[in-house]
Structures are given as structure tokens and as C-alpha cells.
């Protein structure tokens, strides 16, 4: 195996590993006659000017993004999770019933809508305030945004499939609780 191939092997293994890999374990993937130290050195030089660097941590190797690019990975304060069921349902109701008030959403869902849910959907720019209803209290309504349509590749809310249509396609509801 030439050095180029040895480099490729190490590269691929490091790429698919979240943890540092020990030089010993890497050695086992290469023929005995390969001088691994030499290969590491070549790789390190290769990656030095790039966006990802090869680092030695103790007796192990790991690929890490270059330090000067850390601004690309600034942590946002939103928690890492999928859209909650409440948010999905709220979004769906707004899409199908817009313009709709918070009270109406709650009536359909049978539970109160947390303000965090509305905030999140607003932050994602999927919903916005609509006109006020002409009922007492003149409650504010919600409607979906153009960004929502754009994001989900719809040309209008009329493109949303109806419930019967979904059933005809054999789309099952049972899986909705899985996140």
C-alpha cells in the first residue's frame, strides 16, 4: 500500500468517528510495512491550512474544525430537539384554519397552547399575526407566512392535502407520536 492509500484509510476512519482513534487501532487497518508516523505527518501537513485539522491527542488522532472558524459553530440558545407535538399540531391547525385565534386553536386541540409554542413558531418565521377577529375582545389571529409555504415547497395553503386525501394515500396517523 502506498502512502496515498494509507492516508485515505486514516482519513475515512477519522471522518466517521466522533471520538479520537488510537494510533494503534489505526495501525491495524494498514499493512505492516506502512510507516504510520510518516503517514500521520503527511496528513497533518495536508490538513494544516484547511478548514479541518488533524490533531494528535495523546496516542490518538482526531479531526477537528480549525479554531479560527469557530464563529461558524456558535451555539444558539434554542434547545436541541425536534419540533414538539404541540408545536406541530398548532402549526397544522393554523395552516388549515387560518386566520385562527389562540382560543380556537385551544378548542381544537383540547388543551391550552403554551406561549412558548407560539413564540417558537414565530421565531421560525412559519406563523405571523393576522387580522383581529370581529368578535368580542377582538382577539388577534394567526396565519402562516410565505416563508412557511416556501419552506415546505407549497405554492399556497390550498396545496395542503386534505385529511381524506391522506387517508386514501395510506398515510397513517399512528406514527405521529414518535418524535
Amino acid at each position, binding site marked *: 500500500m502506498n502512502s496515498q492509500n494509507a492516508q485515505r484509510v486514516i482519513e475515512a476512519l477519522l*471522518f466517521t468517528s466522533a471520538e479520537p482513534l488510537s494510533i494503534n487501532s489505526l495501525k491495524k487497518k494498514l499493512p505492516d510495512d506502512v510507516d504510520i508516523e510518516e503517514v500521520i505527518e503527511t496528513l497533518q501537513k495536508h490538513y494544516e491550512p484547511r478548514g479541518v485539522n488533524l490533531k494528535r491527542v495523546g496516542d490518538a488522532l482526531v479531526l477537528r474544525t480549525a479554531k479560527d472558524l469557530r464563529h461558524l459553530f456558535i451555539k444558539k440558545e434554542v434547545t436541541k430537539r425536534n419540533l414538539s407535538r404541540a408545536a406541530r399540531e398548532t402549526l397544522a391547525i393554523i395552516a388549515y384554519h387560518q386566520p385562527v385565534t389562540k382560543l*380556537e386553536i385551544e378548542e*381544537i386541540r383540547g388543551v391550552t397552547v403554551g406561549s412558548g409554542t407560539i413564540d417558537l413558531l414565530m421565531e421560525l418565521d412559519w406563523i405571523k399575526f393576522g387580522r383581529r377577529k370581529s368578535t368580542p375582545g377582538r382577539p388577534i389571529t394567526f396565519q402562516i407566512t410565505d416563508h412557511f409555504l416556501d419552506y415546505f415547497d407549497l405554492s399556497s395553503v390550498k396545496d395542503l392535502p386534505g385529511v381524506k386525501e391522506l387517508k386514501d394515500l395510506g398515510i397513517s396517523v399512528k406514527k405521529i407520536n414518535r418524535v
Partner: protein
Amino acid sequence: MNDSTEYYEDTKPELHVSLDGFEGPLDLLLTLAKSQKVDLKKLQLGILAEQFLKYLRDQRFKSKLEFVGDYLVMASWLTLLKSQLIIPEDENKEENVDKINELLALRLQRLSLIREKATWLFDRPKLLQDFFPSSIDKNEKVIKEDLLKVQISDILKAYMGIVDKKNYEVSLASKEEYLFLDKAINFIEEQVKESTAILSFANLVKAIHVSSGINAKRCAASIFCGLLEYTKLGKISMKQEGVFASLELAKVRNEIKG
């Protein structure tokens, strides 16, 4: 059968019955044609029809007749075609036969091609089998990307879940059970417009209760709120002679008296 197979195989074929593994008449015809090594573009419909019919006779087909509409349709027109091939009558019909033959050949060709392509597709190198994604530290990943995993089908399923659970129709559901305020106001407006006599609260409630079938107490509550709202707008005035007396209303005349 374990869960995963159940999940990935179609366990409930709906309108087609798999006869010895054939998925519908087109599938069977294609297999017959291929076993004869027929060029699909020069289909020998006569021979094929005969084989198809023979196949149906040979299989324990009759007991399943109620399930096999597709096969029956295919069988009946193949029979018709065969008979026309044997006894050609006039030129028009012959043309018809050619046309049908051509269309069938086209359909078989298409199915055969798609089948090839499906095989090609699944023979390809695949993610997590032949090539692999990055697992490099993602602790600092930007969050929005994760939220963006939502697909429109997730949203739709969420909606279907609600609709199913509550037995809601596509519009706001409690429609039949509640008298919504805007409806109450509309109703009051109509009544006020149509009648010249003095209207009472009790009459209004009774009228809407009878016509809509909604619970009388709910009607009363909605109508009362509606009256308050309508009075506030200055469209009517209300008066009551004493405690528990009848609540009466009248239009406010806006005409300027000259």
C-alpha cells in the same frame, strides 16, 4: 413474522390478490411474455391471451373470484381479443385489435423497464452500506438545522391526529354544540332588520334554539352576549321594566328627522 418484516413488506394488499406471487394481471402477463422470450414490441397477443386464460383456469382461481376484479377485466378483454383474432369481421375491428395490442405492449414494456430500473437502483452503492457520513463532533452545531428536520408530512400527520382524535370535520368542530358569538350576532341582526315589533330576549333564544337544535342554555348565553355587543355598537337599545321582567329590545333609529 417479526416486526421489521411486517413493517417493510406490504402485509395488506388491498385490491389485488397475489396469485402465486404475482402482483396483478400486468405482472402475470409480463412474466408469461418473458417466459416465451417474446419481444415486447412485437407482442403475440393471441398466444399470450391463451396462456393467461389457461393460467387462470389452472390456478385455484375460482374460489377467489370475489377478490380478483383486475384479473377478471383483463381476462374478459383478452378473451374478446382472442375471439376477434380468430374470427376477424370487418376492418374497423381489426384496427381496434391492433390498437389494443399496441397499448398492451406499451404497458408491458413500461412495467418491464421500471422493474429493471428498480433493480438497478437497489443494486447501487448505498449510504451506511457502501459509504458513510461524518460523525465528527457536532456539539456545537447550529440549532436551527435540527429544527428544520420537520417535514410537511409531520405537520399533516399532526393534523390528522387531531382530526381523528376529536372526530372533527375539517372546520372548527364544536359547530353543532355551541352557538358561536358571531353567529348569534348575525342572527340578532337579521331579526332586528326583519321585525318591526318589539323583540324580546326570550323570543330570540327560543327561535334560535328551535332552528339550530343547540342546547337552550347555550343559546341564551350566546344571545345575551350578542345583544350586549350589538347594543354597544349602538344598533339597538334594550330595556327591562323590573328585576326578572322580560328583556326587550328595539332598533335605534338613525334617520335624521328633518
